[in-house]
């Protein structure tokens, strides 16, 4: 490697900045999302510090929305933890898809990058990993994207918490949660198995809604996943 001269930016830093820059457009969508989370957490009577703390500790939008709702309905801790775990299971898929690109890194880098492995950082990082250029510095790009997203999420949460105390219940802002999930689920309806998973899960949720401790959510999730697998199996046999 050539020694870097003073006028030139270090290649690691250049990667980091490129990642940060390419994450910025996604913040447009993330910022309102984080604010709505903050508002909802306040309406669920979460302490402000816990609402902000969740954005830093769990750092996963959809699961935080659901947690705020479950807390408002008085669900027990174990159900909340189990629900967060199931909702965030998809991150294991991201982790598996990054394995070939991060294999060469020392463990402390992997441990650091894992913390930033969210939907929005993954989307940006994997696009960069998938292009044909050498992989050796791309973890800096991932880190730049991840930190940018992290900062946007913390700031938007704080803004939402600040606003949350001032939003009256008659604005039906809790409905924004259902709408956000509709916005996330519609693009996932790519094929018949995915539609089957969604419909069966929804029907189980309706039918099992009286189950104690919000267990219907976990029952519906498992039922929907099995329905998706079964439908995929049927399609494969008939096709």
């Amino acid at each position: 490697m050539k020694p870097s001269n003073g006028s030139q930016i270090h290649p690691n830093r250049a990667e980091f900045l490129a990642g940060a820059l390419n994450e910025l457009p996604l913040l447009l969508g993330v910022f309102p999302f984080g604010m709505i989370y903050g508002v909802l957490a306040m309406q669920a009577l979460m302490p402000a510090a816990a609402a902000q703390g969740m954005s830093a500790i769990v750092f996963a939008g959809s699961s935080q929305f659901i947690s705020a709702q479950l807390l408002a309905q008085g669900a027990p801790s174990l159900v909340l933890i189990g629900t967060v775990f199931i909702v965030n299971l998809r991150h294991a898929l991201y982790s598996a898809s990054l394995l070939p690109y991060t294999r060469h890194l020392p463990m402390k880098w992997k441990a650091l990058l894992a913390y930033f492995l969210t939907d929005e950082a993954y989307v940006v990082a994997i696009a960069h990993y998938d292009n044909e250029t050498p992989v050796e510095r791309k973890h800096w790009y991932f880190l730049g994207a991840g930190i940018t997203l992290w900062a946007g999420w913390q700031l938007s949460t704080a803004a939402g918490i600040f606003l949350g105390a001032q939003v009256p219940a008659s604005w039906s802002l809790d409905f924004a949660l259902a709408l956000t999930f509709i916005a996330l689920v519609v693009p996932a309806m790519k094929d018949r198995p995915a539609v089957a998973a969604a419909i069966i899960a929804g029907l189980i949720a309706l039918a099992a809604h009286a189950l104690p401790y919000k267990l219907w959510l976990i029952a519906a999730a498992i039922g929907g996943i099995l329905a998706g697998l079964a439908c995929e199996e049927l399609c494969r046999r008939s096709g």
Partner: protein
Amino acid sequence: MQTIWLTLAAAGLLTYLTRLSFMGLLQHWQMPDMLRRALRFVPPAVLSAIIFPDLLLRDGVLAFSLDNYRLLAGVVAALVGWRTRNILWTIASGMATLYLLQWLSIRF
């Protein structure tokens, strides 16, 4: 007060370990094909399990009618989401529909 922090810590740790899983902890474990295929269905199943009761239940009873404004607003939002693939437009159209219906029902 303390319970909520313990809950957050446990939820955060599990989420973190999920993210680290294949990258750091299970590098040599071959994920069973079945599990890999199942993971794809987690988002649609979980999300619609939350959406359905939100739109269709009122005080725990099925409300499948035209005066269920949340249901109507949700359908509008789903159509907008399907056409635009944009989270903000989806939320905005759903909230606007809900407000419009509520306003109309007060006026008329």
